[in-house]
């Protein structure tokens, strides 16, 4: 490492150095430096001369531009230990490649779904209970309901006709969705809600639409859609033209225990009914017959109630409920998803892309800068170490 000039040379020292240079240049020197001049000339004359064969061979090698294939290297020369340094391009591109890999990994981690969810998106699967796929649940619920109806009229076995089979969960799913739209578009958006309910093979249980043309405009819907089509319906409702999603909540409730309990109660009522019918067949007295008929009526009423309760539970499983509210708002975006290309939307997307890119770049820099500093420090230490080793070799020589 170069050191700064601490101070100018002393006059005597400077004069001696000038005398040396003058001697080597063939110029006269001050007589008081004659001894120094003589020493300088002797030192110059002690210069080791290059051998003739070496000079000729070097000239040839230079003429061939150090071509390895030239074969002009003298046999007496030992193999030149020329450590091949990595190509300059490699040295440049290796850190660039490493940095690009870091950026790519960060980008993947940042942008992959689940890493950070976009606002307004509906979180699918948030309501799913283990083993309760929408289609499967609805199908199994329908099947259980059919079995229950059949049992109501024909089943005479002892087992509960509608008890859920082992491991098949009965899950009630529901969702709340809040949308925002311009006050003047309440009607148009509400109409789309009806269309979505129809396309999902569901229905609108009740609705309330208040269109005032101002921010007080709002609409509320209670939708019932087959559980198998719940996610499809939510997805469509989230992309209604002219509306944006304000909030979305999915929930689920496992009612397997309730369904099982209702089934058991129904089976017990039916068993009681069969027992009473048997006793009625063997009754002789009028009092006994009347009493048994009264008990059978009560048992039938109990069976009807339990059957209705079971049917309600099955209906809840088969059909999911969506509570949808639409609020008129002047600040709502002019278009929702699927509203087509507009300059405003394109500008919004462009800004978002730039923000994400800047974030990724910032993260990459946060990783790369410390790495670069460490690498630079290591390189500096390596150079210092190598220099010190060389200097120490000179000291030992």
């Amino acid at each position: 490492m170069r050191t700064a000039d601490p101070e100018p040379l002393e006059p005597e020292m400077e004069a001696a150095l000038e005398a040396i240079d003058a001697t080597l240049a063939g110029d006269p020197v001050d007589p008081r430096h004659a001894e120094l001049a003589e020493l300088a000339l002797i030192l110059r004359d002690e210069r080791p001369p290059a051998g003739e064969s070496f000079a000729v061979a070097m000239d040839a090698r230079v003429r061939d531009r150090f071509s390895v294939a030239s074969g002009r290297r003298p046999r007496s020369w030992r193999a030149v230990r020329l450590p091949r340094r990595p190509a300059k391009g490699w040295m440049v591109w290796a850190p660039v490649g490493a940095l690009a890999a870091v950026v790519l990994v960060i980008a993947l981690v940042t942008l992959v779904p689940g890493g950070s969810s976009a606002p307004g998106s509906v979180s699918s699967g948030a309501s799913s209970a283990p083993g309760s796929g929408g289609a499967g649940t609805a199908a199994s619920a329908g099947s259980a309901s059919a079995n229950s109806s059949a049992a109501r009229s024909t089943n005479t076995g002892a087992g509960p006709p509608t008890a859920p089979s082992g491991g098949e969960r009965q899950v009630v799913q529901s969702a709340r969705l809040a949308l925002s739209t311009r006050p003047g578009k309440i009607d148009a958006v509400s109409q789309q809600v009806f269309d979505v309910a129809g396309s999902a093979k569901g229905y609108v249980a009740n609705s309330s639409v208040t269109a005032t043309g101002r921010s007080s405009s709002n609409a509320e819907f209670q939708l019932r859609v087959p559980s198998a089509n719940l996610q499809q319906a939510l997805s469509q409702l989230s992309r209604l033209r002219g509306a944006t999603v304000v909030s979305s909540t999915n929930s689920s409730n496992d009612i397997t225990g309730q369904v099982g309990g209702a089934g058991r109660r129904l089976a017990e009522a039916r068993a009681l009914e069969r027992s009473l019918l048997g006793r009625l067949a063997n009754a002789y007295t009028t009092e006994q017959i009347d009493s048994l008929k009264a008990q059978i009526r009560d048992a039938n009423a109990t069976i009807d109630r339990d059957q209705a309760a079971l049917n309600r539970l099955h209906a809840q499983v088969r059909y999911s409920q969506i509570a949808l509210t639409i609020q008129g708002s002047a600040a709502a975006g002019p278009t929702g998803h699927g509203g087509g290309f507009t300059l405003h939307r394109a500008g919004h997307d462009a800004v978002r892309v730039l923000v994400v890119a800047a974030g990724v770049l910032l993260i990459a820099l946060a990783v790369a800068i410390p790495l670069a500093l460490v690498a630079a420090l290591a390189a500096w230490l390596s150079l210092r170490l190598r220099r010190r080793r060389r200097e120490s070799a000179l000291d030992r020589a």
Partner: protein
Amino acid sequence: MDPEPERSAGVIEARSQPATDPRGGAWERFEQLYRSSRDDVYAYVATLLRDPAAAEDVTALAFERAYRRRGTFDRRRGVERAWLFGIARNAALDELRRRTRVAALVVDPEDVAAPSVADGAEVALRRTAVRSAIAALNGREREIVALKFHGGLTNGEIGRVLGISETAAGTLLYRTMEKLRRACDANG
């Protein structure tokens, strides 16, 4: 003042074909540098290593390295001779390190006490005393003698090669000369 840098003599004209190097004049500059510095670099390396065969190897290696790196030379960082001698110095010191690892230093091939027959008696004695004094110098002192009197570098160029200032190089040279003079007086 500093002598002219071009000291090597008797170098055969190496260029036998037009310069077709894609880097333009880089090859011509290198060729000129070779012609002006070959013997100086050899002399410097030979003084440092005290082994003519190793000095030939290292000199060839230094020029080959300089040729490979000729595109990286930056004139703003110094003259080409200092750059070339820096490469040669690194190669020579690496050779010294290698020798230290492998075996003891190779002994001087020449008998430093042997005077030249052509010299007069007094001059011969004086040369013998100088040679003995040089042999007694440590590596750093011997190096600056080699750079100045065998390599033909100016004090500024010596500073660039050693990574020190010109003033520091001058001071080191002056002290080495004083040490040599005292040793010669003592031997004489």
